[in-house]
């Protein structure tokens, strides 16, 4: 990561700000980094990385995260959608740094299928990057209704009217629209009988 890249994306706290903060305030524990513009108090994704930065600084190393900002942001999005962390490769001995052969930049891209092909009860993550088949107005409405990129949906009805649940909201989507929405099914949530 470069110094100007964001570590806490929720509150837009950059690596530079954190490094300067540690040099200035000399925090004794990593959790004190939350005093730096609220870093880590949002989605909590960056908490292990804040610990890591703090540990590096305590050891006298120059704090830096060994991950590209794009990859970092992508994993965070996945984390926020699914609630699970994929480990990030790095030097051994630190939290979430265990090298994992399964996770690297050449991992196969997840399969995306139209929303209409999910079974009832199945959960999936919505990919809005290619909602190109829909008119602009429709896309904006869907976003505003809660069907934004990387949100998690549960299929309540897979019939000709597709009903999905996003958090506590239920949306009815006619099949013309639903078949243009691409989703990545979440493993282990196969449909109900």
């Amino acid at each position: 990561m470069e110094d100007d890249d964001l570590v806490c994306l929720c509150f837009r706290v950059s690596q530079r700000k954190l490094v300067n903060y540690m040099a200035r305030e000399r925090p004794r524990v990593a959790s004190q980094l939350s005093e730096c513009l609220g870093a880590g108090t949002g989605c909590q994704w960056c908490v292990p990385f804040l610990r890591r930065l703090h540990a590096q600084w305590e050891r006298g190393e120059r704090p830096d995260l060994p991950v590209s900002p794009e990859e970092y942001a992508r994993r965070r999005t996945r984390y926020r959608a699914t609630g699970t962390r994929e480990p990030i490769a790095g030097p051994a001995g630190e939290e979430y740094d265990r090298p994992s052969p399964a996770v690297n930049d050449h991992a196969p891209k997840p399969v995306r299928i139209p929303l209409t092909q999910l079974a009832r009860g199945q959960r999936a993550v919505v990919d809005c990057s290619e909602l190109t088949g829909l008119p602009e107005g429709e896309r904006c409405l869907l976003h505003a209704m809660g069907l934004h990129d990387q949100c998690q949906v549960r299929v309540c009805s897979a019939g000709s009217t597709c009903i999905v649940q996003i958090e506590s909201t239920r949306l009815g989507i006619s099949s013309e629209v639903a078949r243009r929405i691409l989703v990545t099914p979440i493993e282990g949530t196969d449909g109900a009988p």
Partner: protein
Amino acid sequence: MSPAPQAGTGRPPRIAVLGNPNTGKTTLFNRLCGARARTANFPGSTVEGRIGTHRSPDGRAELELVDLPGTYSLALDTPESQVCRECLAGEFGGIAPDAMLVVVDSTNLRRNLGFAAQVLLHRLPAVVALNMWDVARTRPGCVDPAELSRRLGCPVVPVSGRSGDGVAALDVALDTVTGLPFGSDALVARLQKLPPAGAAPSLLAEWADAVVRSSTPGGIRTDEPADRLLDRVDIALTHPFLGIVAFAASMAALFAAIFLVAQVPMDLIDLVFGTAAEAVHAALPQGILGDLLAEGVVAGIGGVLVFLPQICLLFFLLTLLEDCGYLARAAFAVDRVMRRFGLSGLSFIPLLSSHACALPGIMSTRLIRDERDRLATILVAPFMSCSARMPVYVLLIGILSVGRPAWFAGVAFAGCYALGAAAGLASAFVARRTLLRGPVRPMVMELPPYRWPSLRTAALVTWDRASVFVRNAGTMILAISVVMWWLSAFPRTDGDARAQQASSFAGQLGDLAQPAFAPLGFDSQLTVGVMTSFLAREVFVSTMAVLAGSGAGADAGDATVLEQVGSMARADGTPVFDVPTTAAALVFFVLAMQCLPTLAVTRRETGGWKWPAIQFGWMTLVAYAAALAAHALATAWTGGSG
């Protein structure tokens, strides 16, 4: 501290009430303002908002609340979104709001906060009301209002619009916040906590998510538990077959209730105003003034009020259905059918209620979100056979079925209804491909949770609709009634009713128009009947009765209206109502736009004379052409003998 009236104007501070749809915003608004609110059309659109006055319990402070339409985002290309933007920019009545009340559904915080962020970016003092708190507080992972308030940089008040809990605290917060000087530090600090203006939806969502996570002490739930029972109910109600059956059943119950229950007050209104008209006649000396009051004003007011029972009942029941969450499901069930005609699922209810009366039908098109769908529905709603056509059908079908088997009348009745509905759907089909060309928007709709409908909300909506009708359409109908009376009462003659009819302006117009109706086989008497019924079609029967009664002489007293009218003769002695003419008249009445109140309501709902003019022109054209065809067919059928 109490907000001072805005300096120099003396008006109470104005507060814009904003929120997503289905957040209970209107329930909360009603809780704050009660029935004192008035409905206002926003300039340049058909979207309605409500303006109410709220007094704090101690009566000190007074606030003016503007209930803006619910929208999912301030950046959408919909009338609702646009109205909200304009109101915040001070383009509504030239008065910018002094503060904002953002109503969020606390059971669905993350989506609601995305919208709240867009609103809070406006440089106005704001209060966030965490509505439905009574539900949210019982759930795990409940947000901490104090922490949320710190994160949003504005007061956050948990309330329940349904039970009224927390409204007092909201009072205090609104009071405090409207007293804040503009551009205070608190406002500036708030702007810094928000995502930047014009942020992408996913960024807004991320921000909202971060805020919710950080202000929920117990940690949030990442996924909502699956409610299989609810899934099954939803599947059944939106099912292509089961859903339609359920919809048909509920609509049958709805309209049975409207027809049966509304009939009593309608008859009562007829009776009261009939008696009142006679009383006015008796009380005043013979003359123009007595006639004007009795036949113009009193009958006119009666003619307005007679529509009220149906309008009130329809809106009361419809609001209950919408409030309990059923209507959104039903719309999906019928959508597939209606799409074929270029209408949306939500068009079904206005069209169905138009079978009782087109007025409440057209007024209920506000349910339809898409503007083109809505206009198409308004355009064709009067084709549905309303109850005012019923007496005309009875009369004409009665004449037609003399000497025919008993089933004929039944088939003819059903045929009239089918003809009207078919013409309406076909017109919608044509309109969506010509005047209202555009893609049929596929339905995307939130399915609100099922819940007990609020009788209070339904009563307030009903009151609202009824008063809008009486104020706007009612005055128009009254004016029309007076003009109508004048047309048929002037110039005065000393002769009997028949002579008066014939020589009045209406009669002269009938004579003038007669050549146009000659191809349909109408003679001048029938033309007068049709002309007078252009204002309100139920007048036809009474006009024909007057014409027939006064022509038949003294011994006609015992004969029924049907026999009298059926035996009317043309100038040359042949019967007026031969088969082709009767058939042509019947078809004409099924299809023609003969109801000025409908035109008045169409004008109100579409905001101009363009659509009523198109409606009138198109329906008259269709009616004339179809009547001509019916005349030709019937002539061929009966061998031209009649």
